[in-house]
């Protein structure tokens, strides 16, 4: 389990990048927290810098979109899923559970 940030520092609509075995991006979607691999599976871009639209994040470089719940890409140019990670909040602190849950179809 990795400490990501304080919950107050991750308000709805925001994201943070966390260093773990690989960089991980944590998102707050209207109060629900999601964690996925930060690096896009297409080329080299940070998904924490992406555009959040509901439960989907759009990559800032070439606009591939990933479902935060499953890690699956929903459009080109990404074809492979990102890993997803369980997120927990204890005492106002956000934690990410590593290792990953494999992206599911």
């Amino acid at each position, binding site marked *: 389990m990795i400490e990501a940030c304080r919950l107050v520092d991750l308000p709805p609509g925001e994201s943070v990048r966390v260093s773990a075995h690989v960089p991980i991006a944590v998102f707050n979607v209207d109060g629900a927290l999601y964690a996925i691999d930060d690096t896009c599976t297409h080329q080299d871009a940070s998904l924490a810098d992406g*555009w959040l639209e509901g439960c989907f994040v759009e990559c800032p470089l070439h*606009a591939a979109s990933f479902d935060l719940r499953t890690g699956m890409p929903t459009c*080109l*140019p990404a074809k492979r899923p990102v890993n997803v990670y369980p997120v927990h909040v204890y005492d106002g602190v956000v934690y990410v559970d590593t290792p990953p849950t494999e992206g599911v179809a």
Partner: protein
Amino acid sequence: MRTIAVVGASLAGVRAAQELRAQGYAGRLVVVGAEAHQPYDRPPLSKDVLLGKATRAEIALLDDGEVARLSAEMWLGVRAERLVPPAGALVLSTGSELPVDGVVIATGGVARRLPGARGIRGVHVLRTLDDALALRADLLAGATRVAVVGGGFVGAEVASSCHALGVPVTVIEALPVPLSRVLGERIGAVCADLHTDHGVDLRCGVSVAGLVSVPDGAGGRRVTAVELSDGGRVDADVVVVGVGMRPATEWLAGSGIAVDDGVLCDAGCVTRLPNVVAAGDVARYQADATGRRVRHEHWSNAAATPATAVRNLLAGRTVARHAADGYVWSEQYGVRIQFAGQVDPTGEVRFVDGAPADRRFVATYHRDGAVVGVLAFDSPRLFTKLRRQLAAIHAR
């Protein structure tokens, strides 16, 4: 329609084939591509491919499974020589003729060359994978100085990659400020600084007067220097000519398709013939109500135009229009540059975050007080937000 041919098997052509299937076309689909390679992505050529960091598989646009699912006949290494009017058949370089009911033109462009450079070893262009591999081989064979002719996006990226490979570079740019036509003078000047920050020798406001070459000992000639219009001279054993491309449209001569710096299309990528559409770098389509036509040479344009083109092809008339947002990105000296929208050459540029001196900033372009474009150096998050806002304004 029973047979649709997609001519050009690069980004726009592959996307067109995928869109045809996604939009329900179940007939015969033939993709004709002049390059023998499996379709690949071009942007990495000047970046990771030159640096030796990207494999063929990594730049492939389609894997085997995707090729199979397309159920398309991929005729690679085959050139369309002619389109027989009124778009009834394609004449191919194999000598055969393919009867067609619909055609997607996705032939992109061909790199411009310097006059008199043909056959001189050491002189390169960069448009194809073969170009990139040949250039890389020459760079690794002990190049002592590279002259890059043209300081546009591709030229700047090549200079950056050569620098990263440890080869000294001179960039020769005809404009007083590089990239000023696409990004304006103010931002072009920051791009110029990126070169000089890294010790790259940038010569602006000069053009190439000629190439100096010597016999290469194998019956040919090898470049040794570039002569400049101001009387100067740059010694170089590798010269990369990055002076843009011209749309690949010669094969359309006599087809009835109107061509003028690209294939002329309406706002929905449809040509004069309703069963022929164009997409990607080759398409010059109507941009707005004024009837002004634009041609974009950007990846996202080649990725997005096929969906509209295919929709209209299958409908038999223009039912959808393409709204370009002009997005382009570039990577130079480890800095990611992103731009969207338009540049007003006389309009104001405002720095809204960061500072040019830090090579990390966001700027907006204005016309009559309104934001028309946004540009960022290494600031993807704010860039994406502003790009979205800009698109929302234009959608209104």
